[in-house]
């Protein structure tokens, strides 16, 4: 159980860091990003990488940071409700990654694959954690 909690928290923290780095590099920097082979650079600079006024990397920062927070809350308070919320948030992240990187944009860039791997692992471990949690909504750390 502890291993799952640690891996989820670490992967979420890694995802937050990765998304923040991509946001800094691709949105805030005044340096022009060159195109190498039509992968990540094309994707990140295309209009499709924006959801309204928000760049997908910023959505990644917020999403992964929420997962870190939820994981820490689950560790602190336990309970099926928080675990369920964690699974729901991870599922939303999983769907967003799959839809955004592979379906809508049709481009499989390396960083998208890394993010997809992270979120899939987080989703699987959080689901396992939910399934193995006691049925009652007891308080107190479980992991």
């Amino acid at each position, binding site marked *: 159980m502890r291993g*799952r909690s640690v*891996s989820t928290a670490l*992967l979420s923290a*890694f995802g937050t860091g990765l998304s923040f780095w991509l946001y800094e590099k691709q949105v805030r920097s*005044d*340096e*022009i*990003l*060159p*195109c*190498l*082979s*039509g*992968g*990540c*650079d*094309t994707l990140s*600079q*295309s*209009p*499709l990488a924006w959801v309204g006024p928000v760049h997908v990397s910023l959505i990644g920062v917020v999403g992964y940071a929420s997962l870190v927070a939820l994981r820490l809350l689950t560790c602190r308070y336990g309970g099926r409700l928080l675990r369920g919320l964690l699974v729901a948030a991870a599922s939303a992240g999983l769907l967003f990654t799959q839809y955004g990187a592979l379906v809508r944009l049709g481009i499989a860039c*390396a*960083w998208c*694959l*890394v993010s*997809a*791997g*992270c979120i*899939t*692992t987080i989703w*699987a*471990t959080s689901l*396992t954690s939910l*399934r*193995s949690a006691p049925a009652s909504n007891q308080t107190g750390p479980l992991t």
Partner: protein
Amino acid sequence: MRITARLLSLACLCLVAAGCGTRSAPATVNLTPEETKVIADSGAGISLGQTDAPVTVIEFSDFQCPGCAQSAERIFPELKRLAADGEIRYIFMDYPLPGHKHAVAASQAARCAARQDKWVPMHDEIFRTQARWAGAEDAKPVFLDLAKEVGLDIPAFEACLSDPTVKDAITRSASEARRLKVNATPTLLVNGKQSALNASRVRDLVEKALKEANVR
């Protein structure tokens, strides 16, 4: 379940490693003055400014690359002005990347505009409207609209689009890029020295080259 989680963790680690490994960096390209002159005089690119200008700026570019569109918006206006003032000779080398399906057609449209002395406005318009045609199934109607907007003779433009020598020139330009091991667009060379992709850095490099040439 534990095995599944471990397998997934392993898969994730492999993906992280793949992500770190596959993101190759742009190659550093530096040319000697002789090589720069050979490329500039080869006729493989589009040339702006006087042939005897003290500084030569070569840009390898792909019309479908978003970074090249940013370069066209932020860096090209300054280069255009310097070329008009006789301070630089600017060479635009087409380098359509394999993943960009309309890049060659865009280069053809620009080169056909060049035959009617309208390369600059067509270049600007193609980049400005990149989002409009890059995702289109067929980009030709957009290029025809742009040709009308910049005031081209449309029958001559259409005839030019099917001229194989135009495509040959683009292929020659791209071959030159590959020969020089250019692996990214835009790649900007100021008197053969690769510049950072930032308007102020390009300006600094041009200023320095002009001082070295005793122009300033």
